[in-house]
Each structure stands twice: as C-alpha cells, then as structure tokens.
C-alpha cells in the first residue's frame, strides 16, 4: 500500500499555473518525489485575469469585453544525481492575449528560465529543502514594446528562493506543507523611452493542503491553499522615485491526479485567486491546467 501511495503522490509538488503581473509565481519546484533518475513533466494551461485589486484591498471584477488570457505550455525536467539530491530546469512558452472593446493584441514567446535543486535530508521523512533561481530571459512589463504590453512574458528580474516541502501520509490521505522565501535582485532596464532601476525586494509564500485517495484507487483528489506576499517594488524610473506597495494574493487549488504506473502520471488542476482574502495590489486569476509526467 505504501508504494502505491508513493506512486500516486508523485505529482504532489506540481505547481498550478497562476500567472500574475504582481506576485511572482515562484514557489515549490517540480520535485522528483519518487526515486528515479529522470523525470519530465509537461503541462498545458489557460489562465484568465478576473479582476484587479487596489492597495486598499478593493476588488474590481473586469467586464466581459476586458479580456486577458495566458495560454502556456510548460516543461519541467528533473535529474536525480543521488537518492537524495536532484536538480531541475523549467521552461515555459506562452501566448498572451489582451482584448478591450476597441483594442486587442496578442504575443507568443518564451517566459523566464527556472532552475532548481533540492535535497532530502536523511533525518526527516519525505521532506525536501530546495533552492530556485529565476533567470529573466524574457521581456517584462519594464521593457515591453507591443501594444497593451502583451510581450511582457517574464518577471524582469533575477530572483532566488529558498524553501521546503513536506508530505505526511496517513492511510488513504496526505497532508502537504511547503514554504519559500525569495529575494529579487536589483536590475537596470533601459528602453528607448525609459531608464528603470529596480531595487531588490523580498517575497514569500506558504502552501498547505491535503489529499484523499478514494476507493484504494490510483487517483488522488487534493486541494491546497497558498498565500503569496511580494514586497514593495522600489527604485527609480527616469530619475523619478518608484515607491510601490506590497502585494498579497491567495491561491486556492483543487486537483485530481492519476498514476497509471510507476512511470506515468497525469493530472488536472483548477486554480482560483478570487476565493480567499485578504488581497491587495494585485490581479486575480483563474486557471485550468493539465499535466503529464513520466520518469525512468
């Protein structure tokens, strides 16, 4: 039973796709939960911005003719160097579409590159300590050129996160916990119209959830909740001080995963940022994603 549970839980650290302009989507990397050499995770998602939240926490849901969607294909590769140490890389190609009643634009391109490594200490059972690194290879909102800034496919800054992920199993269920703190590093971004200097800032998230394996099957039904906090962005823009405010948003996720065998698993996930508050200075997203994972 324990091995079956372990196989079913192979997709536990898989992230839902919560695209956001304001709060980075850095959290737990796609960890290799099962002892394998290689693991590939392919995901496809569609996210839609539902509303905007001001600094006072007032939410405004967008009108029907104000559409912002992101369709993304994502690939995560993980390699286990030893039983306890693994490294990973994450690549994402996405299409951003923006539409108002009198204007529309869309753009496709690669998002930032994500790197990670993780270690499972021997003194703890099913606990991973990880570090993530974001490399801003994509255009961001700070140097977007396309109409409606649809070519802003990345975050714009280097950042690194340090965190943990823990699974507790019991009978047909599980509880999961994860947390991370990240630091975005300062960066100068020059365009024809503006010279922007962003100072470094802190952010963090904490995830908690649980799952249930019904009828002793190979399927797991799960949920998790993740508050994400992003520190205020400060710096200068063409000599003017930037004094941003901090952002807060909550991810609420339900997912279903199915493990075909020890090598293959698939899942579907729904993420909603409109359910739980308080929220502030952010956009609110709903997304649906599908994922397929193989390992050997």
């Amino acid at each position, binding site marked *: 039973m324990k091995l079956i549970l372990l196989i079913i839980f192979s997709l536990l650290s898989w992230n839902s796709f919560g695209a956001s302009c304001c709060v980075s989507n850095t959290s737990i990397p796609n960890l290799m939960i099962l002892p394998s050499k290689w693991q590939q995770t392919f995901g496809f998602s569609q996210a839609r*911005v539902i509303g905007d939240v001001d600094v006072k926490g007032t939410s405004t849901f967008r009108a029907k003719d104000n559409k912002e969607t992101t369709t993304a294909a994502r690939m995560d590769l993980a390699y286990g160097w030893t039983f306890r140490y693994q490294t990973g890389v994450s690549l994402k190609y996405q299409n951003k579409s923006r539409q*108002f009643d009198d204007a529309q634009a869309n753009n496709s391109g690669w998002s930032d590159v994500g790197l990670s490594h993780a270690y499972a200490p021997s003194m703890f059972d099913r606990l991973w300590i990880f570090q993530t690194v974001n490399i801003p290879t994509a255009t961001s909102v700070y140097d977007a050129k396309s109409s409606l*800034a649809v070519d802003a496919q990345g975050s714009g800054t280097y950042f690194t996160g340090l965190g943990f992920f823990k699974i507790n199993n019991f009978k047909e269920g599980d509880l999961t916990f994860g947390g991370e703190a990240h630091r975005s590093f300062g960066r100068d971004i020059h365009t024809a119209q503006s010279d922007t200097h962003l100072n470094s800032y802190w952010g963090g998230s904490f995830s908690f959830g649980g799952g249930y394996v019904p009828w002793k099957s190979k399927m797991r039904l799960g949920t998790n909740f993740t508050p994400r906090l992003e520190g205020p962005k400060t710096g200068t823009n*063409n000599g003017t001080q930037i004094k941003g405010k901090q952002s807060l948003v*909550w991810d609420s996720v339900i997912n279903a995963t199915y493990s075909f065998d020890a090598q293959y698993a698939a899942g579907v996930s729904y993420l909603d940022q409109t359910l739980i508050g308080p929220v502030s200075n952010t956009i609110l997203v709903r997304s649906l994603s599908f994922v397929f994972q193989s390992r050997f």
Partner: protein
Amino acid sequence: MRPIFLLMFLILGCGESPLLHHKNEKKNPVSGIFSLQSVPTFSVLKYQFKIDWDETPKLGGNKFDLKMWDMNRGSDQGPFHDPPTEMNIFLWMPAMGHGSSPVKISKIDTGEYRVSEIYFIMGGTWQIKFQLIQNSKVIDEVDLTYHL
C-alpha cells in the same frame, strides 16, 4: 461532507473573499484630471500645455491632442511652441511599480502633438508622466493622475 463545508466556510470567512466582496468594472469609470481645471506647468522651463482627450480616458486604448506654449510668449489660445528640449511621455502605475507599452507621439504642427497608443492595461491608479529631457537627464516633469 460536513467537515469540508465547514472548512470552506472558515477559510472564506477568515479574510475578505474577493468573490464575496467585489464591485464590477463599469464603462469609463475614470476619476481624476480629464478636463483640466488648472493648466499643467513645467515649472523649471516655464512651459505650459493642455490636453484634449478624444473621449474620457478608459481601460484599453486612448488618444489625446497636446498643445504647448512658452508662458512668456503664448497662452492656451496660442501661439504654441515646441518644448526647448526633448519631450518624453509615458504611463506609470505607482503602486505596482511598473508602466505600460510605449505611447506614440506624432508632431502635428509647432507646439501641437497627437499622442496615441495610450494603453491603460489594468484597473488602478495611473500616472501620465510628461518629461522634458536634456542630455539624458530629466530637467522638468509634470504628472497627471487618473483612477481607472
């Protein structure tokens, strides 16, 4: 099922759920300066300007005409004058710490410009920054604030 509903109730009740406490976006919900009561002034170089929006500023695409004059030689009725230095106009969201895509500035006549591709990409407080730049340095700036 009862514990699940209880848990959801507790979670939704902990903070102010956006789903349960939100307002819906309205057409042209802008507030701020769109019919100017006072004339924007570059205080260092003593230039003033006025802008005439094609329509009330809104989320999405916007356009306006800008007319500028030297305070010592002109008025809002003319004659109009080109700024003495390079002029830069861009959008900025102070709370978010980011802007939008570049606006397009087309010269129509002396001191008269057509500013288009003004895209307010999301709701919130926006600034339109008008800057006069010399030797890559901002020497004068006027910000107009809009709440969308």
